[in-house]
């Protein structure tokens, strides 16, 4: 199977593009730190999507031009951003009213593990010497209407990130709706995981072999 292990599937940009295609016009979207941030670059022309960052901005725009950074205009990852026309600023309690109150449509997050039931672990490996840090992850999965996960299908060690049961501490239980990996797009439903699309070169058996939970075909 060594040669099969070498399958790369989609690259990061392709994964982000797949997720972006599923964001409809008019959606209010929160993108997690890291790979999820790429999604904003691939939303099809003609769709107007409004990005929320939990540190108090609705209508986040792209990175500023060099030299135009404002240290008081940043995103949740503490990177410099811009604000679009029609944006607004607000404080943290109002920002999490948007999140907890189920006003945001979609949140795209990274993952350490996702279970077959949609449980998500993405904030801690539970290692004893680690400094625990949670940020807004638990609020987002508890409050946003639809949770997309974007992640490599397997870890650097070749272990599946989609598992029967998360071994890392949970961020939330039964919260993930869809998973975008380099191998496939997988829906989390009441009846289990369903494969929506596979990357070029990936077949169902290969995908199941590298997935820790049972997969179903639509």
């Amino acid at each position, binding site marked *: 199977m060594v040669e099969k292990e070498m399958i790369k599937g989609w690259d990061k940009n392709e994964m982000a593009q797949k997720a972006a295609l599923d964001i409809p*016009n*008019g959606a*209010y979207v929160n993108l997690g730190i890291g790979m999820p941030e790429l999604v904003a670059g691939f939303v099809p022309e*003609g769709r*107007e999507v*409004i990005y*929320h960052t939990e540190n108090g901005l*609705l*209508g986040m725009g792209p990175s500023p031009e060099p030299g135009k950074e404002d240290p008081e205009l940043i995103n949740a990852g503490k990177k410099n951003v811009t*604000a679009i*026309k*029609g*944006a*607004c*600023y*607000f404080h943290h*309690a*109002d920002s*999490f*009213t*948007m*999140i*907890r*109150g*189920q*006003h*945001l449509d979609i949140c795209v997050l990274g993952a350490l593990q996702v279970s077959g039931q949609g449980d998500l672990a993405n904030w801690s490996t539970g290692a004893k010497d680690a400094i625990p840090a949670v940020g807004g992850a638990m609020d987002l999965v*508890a*409050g946003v209407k639809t949770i997309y996960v974007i992640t490599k299908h397997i870890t650097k060690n070749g272990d599946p990130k989609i598992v029967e049961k998360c071994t890392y501490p949970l961020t939330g239980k039964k919260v993930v709706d869809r998973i975008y990996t380099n191998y496939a797009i997988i829906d989390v439903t009441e009846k289990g995981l369903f494969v929506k699309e596979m990357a070029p070169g990936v077949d169902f058996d290969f995908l199941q072999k590298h997935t820790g939970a049972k997969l179903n075909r639509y």
Partner: protein
Amino acid sequence: MINKIIKTPAEAVAEVFDGAVIMISGFGEAGSPIELIHALIDQGAKDLTIVSNNTGSGHVGLASLIEHRRVKKMICSFPRTANSTVFPELYTKGEIELELVPQGTLAERIRAGGAGIPAFYTPTSVDTPLAEGKESRIFNNKEYVMEYGIKADFSFVKCQAADRYGNLIYNKTARNFGPVMCTAATTTIVQARKVVELGEIDPECVVTPGIFVQKVVEVSNPADESKLVAENRRYPW
């Protein structure tokens, strides 16, 4: 493109259904979306539960909606004011329900509903008849009453200016319940004195972010309720 602007009050309220819970902004006439309420009277939805601080004055606006027997229940803090006769008459006859809520508890219950908080504790109303039948609990040697968040199917809100994203600013004390009500409804319908271009509202001064608003209709010359009441006008005209 995102465009929440609707052409007429009638279109804006068209989807209201019988039995709906509707929050209506305003403190007395200040901030009361009278044109939306009149459009709702024309539209005909009934068996409504209305969440609003008062019950309207004279025979226009909220008072007229109640007079048309469309309201099953009022949730409010102060159901009688100088010129309110419609609600008191129906209430005395036992023909409308009332849930009386202290004003700050009403505001906080609406905010909680909008913020995904199902319940909270408050010192307000402890040891009074309004706490009867409610759970209470001691924190730090002081007693508090548990109150529930309120959500609505619709909020009807009046504001000063809005853009196509639904960002809102208000006028003076007409702000009152509008911002919290916008957060607590499945569908928030706003009447704005003025619809402005994106960016015309300073992003530092937006009071209601557009995410909380679904529909905006421009009503550039809203009726002055107290004048209508003084003239003893009745809706429909």
